[in-house]
Structures are given as structure tokens and as C-alpha cells.
């Protein structure tokens, strides 16, 4: 038998309420300032570097995002570890906070399904992240225009917009992680710690570990090693393992989109490179094709994580 009514009844109400909570919270303000300051630092480094070195570059504007100057990392690398922090900051107490405030049973006694509460919380978190990322993006674009003085071409604008979309998707993945742990753990502090721990492991330890695990699965062939080459099987295994981490997926997607000369994100044979004009930029459509699997991978992992959380939440006891 089907249950009556729509699972989405009340989603809009929950989204609006959560959104206003997020946008007025002190936490959000702190995160915003953190992001803005860090991004400005990275941007400053990039612009110094661009002014020093680049004489002629058809994609000068995109360099803004990817160029780094020691000791600061590039804007993209800053974003790739700040976005998870923002998402975790917004999501770690989404569900358990309702229990701890003892509002959960009162809200669920209203004519809505639990689905609406969870969807609403996720969408509101994503909207908040999108708003702050768009703001940041506009800020960077504007500063870039002012400081470099070269207007970006249509394709550059297109690539910048794609970068923004991919960043929002990446934020969605981490928001889903944070939401999942806020459902699993009743204590907000535990949820925050566990989520941050997982972020640390996935972002900083897993890439190193992936290489070691890959060598265990496919041992290095001494013949390749003698020639100073990577064993193809090992390299492939390492890539597959590394791509389990959303950070890797994001990094690869961004490389494909912001660097038009990127032709492949995995290891390729020399034979596959035959006839290629190295260093020649690809059209935007081709770059999208290269980044497509990674992007879909991120969307899929966000959905899977959300569904796991959804199932747990549906079966959870309401009483605190």
C-alpha cells in the first residue's frame, strides 16, 4: 500500500527556514571571512606570478585560478580544501541538532514526512554554499579584471562558469557526508570530529595510500622499472583507487576544465599520443567530455551518501 500525499510536502518551507538560519548564523559569517581572506591571498600570489612571467597566453584569465606562487597554493587548491570545511561546518549538526534542541518530534508531528525535512536541509545547505561560492567567484573575477586588465574571452567565461558549477557539486558531496554523520551520531561534536577525520584521511592520506595499495594489487614490473617507466597496470590501479576520493575527482575535473591543454586524466600510451599537437588547447566541448566521468562520479557519490543517510533517518527512532 502506498502512503498518502507527497514526500515533498513542506520541503519549500524547510528550505526557506534553514536558509535563513544559515545566512544569519555566526558560523556562516566566520566561514565566509575565512574563504574570502584565503582566496584573496591566493589571488594576490597568482597575479604577482602572472605579471612576472606570462608574456602571451591565450587563456590568461584561467591562470588566475590555477597559478600559485610559493609559499601559497593556487586558488583552486585553496578552494578544494576550504569547500569541504564550509560544507562540514554547515551540515555537521543538521539532523542531530534537531534532536538536541528537542524540536525533532514537534516538527515531525506536523503534516510532513521526514523526507521533506532531510531534503529541505540538504537543499538549503547546498543553496547557502552556492550563494557564498558565487559571491566568491564574482569577487575573484572582478579583482582579476581590475588587476590583470585583460578581459576574458567567451570560452574563458564558459570555463569559469563550469568551474563554479563543479565546485558547487563538490560542495554537495561534502554536505552529503556531513549530513550522513549528523544522522548517524546524536552528538554534534562527535559528528563534526568524525566528518573532519574522514575529510583529512580522504584528502591528504588516501592519495598516498592509493599508490601503496595499488602496488600490492598489481606489483611493479621490474622491466618497466628498469626503463624508468611506470608499470601500466599499477598506474591504472592507483588511478582507480585515488578516484574513490571526491577530492581527486574534483582536482581532475578542475584540471580538465581550467587547463584547455589537458588531453587525458589518466595514464596514456605513447601510441595514443600519435598525431597530437602537444600543448595545443582543446575546444571547451572536448574538455567537458574529459571531465564528464569525474563530474558524474561526484554527483553519484553525493546521491549515494544522501540515500544512505535517508534510509538511516527513516528508520531512526524519533524520541530523543
Amino acid at each position, binding site marked *: *500500500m502506498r*502512503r*498518502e*500525499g507527497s514526500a515533498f*510536502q*513542506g520541503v519549500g*518551507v*524547510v528550505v*526557506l*527556514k534553514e536558509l535563513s*538560519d544559515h545566512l544569519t548564523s555566526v558560523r556562516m559569517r566566520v566561514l565566509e571571512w575565512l574563504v574570502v581572506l584565503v582566496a584573496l591571498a591566493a589571488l594576490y600570489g597568482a597575479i604577482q606570478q602572472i605579471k612576472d612571467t606570462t608574456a602571451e597566453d591565450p587563456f590568461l584569465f584561467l591562470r588566475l585560478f590555477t597559478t600559485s606562487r610559493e609559499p601559497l597554493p593556487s586558488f583552486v587548491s585553496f578552494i578544494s580544501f576550504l569547500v569541504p570545511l564550509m560544507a562540514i561546518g554547515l551540515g555537521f549538526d543538521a539532523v542531530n541538532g534537531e534532536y538536541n*534542541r*528537542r*524540536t525533532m*518530534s*514537534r*516538527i*515531525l*508531528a*506536523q*503534516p*510532513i*514526512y521526514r523526507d521533506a525535512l532531510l531534503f529541505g536541509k540538504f537543499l538549503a545547505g547546498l543553496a547557502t554554499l552556492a550563494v557564498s561560492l558565487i559571491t566568491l567567484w564574482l569577487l575573484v573575477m572582478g579583482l582579476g579584471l581590475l588587476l590583470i586588465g585583460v578581459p576574458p574571452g567567451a570560452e574563458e567565461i564558459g570555463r569559469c562558469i563550469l568551474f563554479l558549477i563543479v565546485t558547487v557539486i563538490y560542495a554537495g558531496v561534502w554536505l552529503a557526508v556531513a549530513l550522513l554523520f549528523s544522522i548517524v551520531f546524536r552528538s554534534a561534536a562527535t559528528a563534526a570530529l568524525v566528518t573532519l577525520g574522514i575529510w583529512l584521511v580522504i584528502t591528504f592520506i588516501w592519495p598516498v595510500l592509493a599508490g601503496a595499495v595499488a602496488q600490492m594489487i598489481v606489483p611493479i614490473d621490474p622491466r618497466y622499472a628498469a626503463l624508468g617507466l611506470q608499470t601500466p597496470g599499477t598506474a591504472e590501479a592507483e588511478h582507480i583507487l585515488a578516484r574513490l576520493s571526491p577530492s581527486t575527482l574534483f582536482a581532475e575535473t578542475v584540471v580538465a576544465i581550467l587547463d584547455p591543454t589537458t588531453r587525458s586524466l589518466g595514464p596514456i600510451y605513447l601510441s595514443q599520443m600519435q598525431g597530437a599537437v602537444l600543448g595545443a588547447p582543446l575546444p571547451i566541448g572536448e574538455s567537458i567530455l574529459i571531465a564528464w566521468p569525474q563530474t558524474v562520479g561526484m554527483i553519484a557519490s553525493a546521491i549515494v551518501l544522501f540515500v544512505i543517510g535517508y534510509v538511516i533517518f527513516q528508520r531512526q*527512532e*524519533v*524520541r530523543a
Partner: protein
Amino acid sequence: MSGEIVIEAKGLTKKYGAATAVDHISFSVGRGEIFGLLGPNGAGKTTTILMMLGLTDISEGEIRVLGFDPAREPLSVKRRVGYLPDAVGFYDQLTAADNLRYTARLIGFKKAEREEKIAAGLNRVGLSEFADKRVSTFSRGMRQRLGLAEILMKGAQIAILDEPTSGLDPHATSELLAIIRAFKAEGVSVLLSSHLLERVQSVCDRVALFSGGRIALMGSVAELGREVLGGGFVVDIEADGAGLAERLALIPGVSGVERTGISKLRLHADRDVRPEAAVEVVGSQGRLRYLGVQEPSLDAIYNRYFETRPNEELTMKDGARDAA
């Protein structure tokens, strides 16, 4: 019980793995009735309430709330039933009115009726002047009243109150009970759970005493008193008069006279002997200062019932052994 039945449970059961939280309970609540689910913590009261609202699965049996099945039609049930959870919480950073606005939007009230209903609800519980204050400044009693304002705003036909009086001072408790009585006057059925028996005794039309997931006793307080405490009436008298105690002992139906203080007497009888006692006092030229009959108290009923129960269980076990 009068008229239409709004809640009806039959063999309602909730199991958590091997443990049974609610064990085949059956009861019904009529329109405009105040029904008390009483019993110690962990007796299954809250679980029963959650099953009524469709917030937890039913393992066995069935329940109908206003004719709807909460497991299948939870939205219809929740649209018509107001729920005040145990130690209700609100969003502290929002004002009282904003908290209610959020709920009103979730219920789906139109903008025009929303403000009116919120103002009316807050007014009824005496929180009008605090409408624009943040809930973080509210006392526990005010939070409970805000919870009741939410139910009033919702226009619920049934109000389910889980431990509404726990943690409240006597003044706040009596305010709360007054609001609950007002619900009844409007034809709203009230189902309230509590472990504080005497506090709710005064408002409940009927009560169900829970114990270990079962309903041990059900009925009005007077009925239960007769059933558990025996048919005895206790009449207290404060009066002087020569040989009064002896004369009172001769009233038909009086089984004993006890001296409880200076010129204070207590009669144990099998019926209400107040009229006869008054006649005797006046007849003996005594001065009557007090004459009252003790209402059976739920506390006494509860304690008496569970004093005798262990023996029952013992005999039941013996019986089972014999049968085996």
C-alpha cells in the same frame, strides 16, 4: 465515555527486537474526553503516543485516530492532531511568534489566516506580550504553554500531551491544567501521559495505568478506587461533642472510628455516611467544624495495586508450572 470515539487501539504492540515496549494494549478515547496514560517512566506511554502519530512503526495490532490509520495516512492524522512532546523544544534563536510561523507554514496555513491564528493561540495561553521575545529567554513553563499555543493554533481535534507537567512549579502546573480543561470545553479530546499521578488526577475523565507495557487498570479514578481499594469510604470529621465517637460508630455501615487528633475523627464506612454523621454531631449538641469524604487518590490506587501484583504473578507462575 460519551458519544463518538476518536482514538481506538486494539491489541497495539511495539517490539524492539526481543524486548516488548508496548504489549497488546486496547483502549478508546471519546470526543471531548480527557484520557490519562499514567505510569512510571519506561512503561510504554511515549511509544504508544508515537505509534498514534505514525512516528514509529506498529509491530502488531491496530490503531485508528479519527478514523485514519497513522501508519498509512500519517499526514491526515498529523493535520488533525496536536502533539506536545516531553520537554518540548523550540528554536531558541527565533521569537515565539516565529517558531509558530514555521509550524503554521509546515501545516500549510495561508498567509492571511496564519497571523490571526498565531495571535489567537498565544493569547489563549497568555503569551501575547512575549510573542516577539526570543524563546531562549523562556522558562520551562512558558515553553510548555507555547507548545499548547501551537496545538491551539493548529485547531487540533485531539491534543496529545506527553508529560506536560513534569518539571513545572505548582503555579505553572495549575495554569497548564486550566488550559487543558479549556480544551475539553471546546470538544477537543486530550490524551495526556504522566508519571505524576496526583497532578493529573484532577483533570482526567478516565485513566489507563501502564505497567511494563501493559494497561494494568483502566477507568475513571472513582471506578478504579472502588475496584482496587475496595468499596470503602473514608469520612473525616472535626467536631466536639460528648461521646461522639461512640454515637458515630453506631451509624449503619460504619465499620470503624479512628481518632486522628484533638476532636478529629475518621470514619471508615461502606458508603458515604456524611449526612448521618452530621445528624449525629448536631444531635449530640456538638459543634461541627469540618466534614469531608476522601476522594480515592491515584497514588493510593497505584501503590495498592502494585503491592498486590507480585503475589498475583507468583500464583500465575505456579499455575504455569502445574500446567506444564
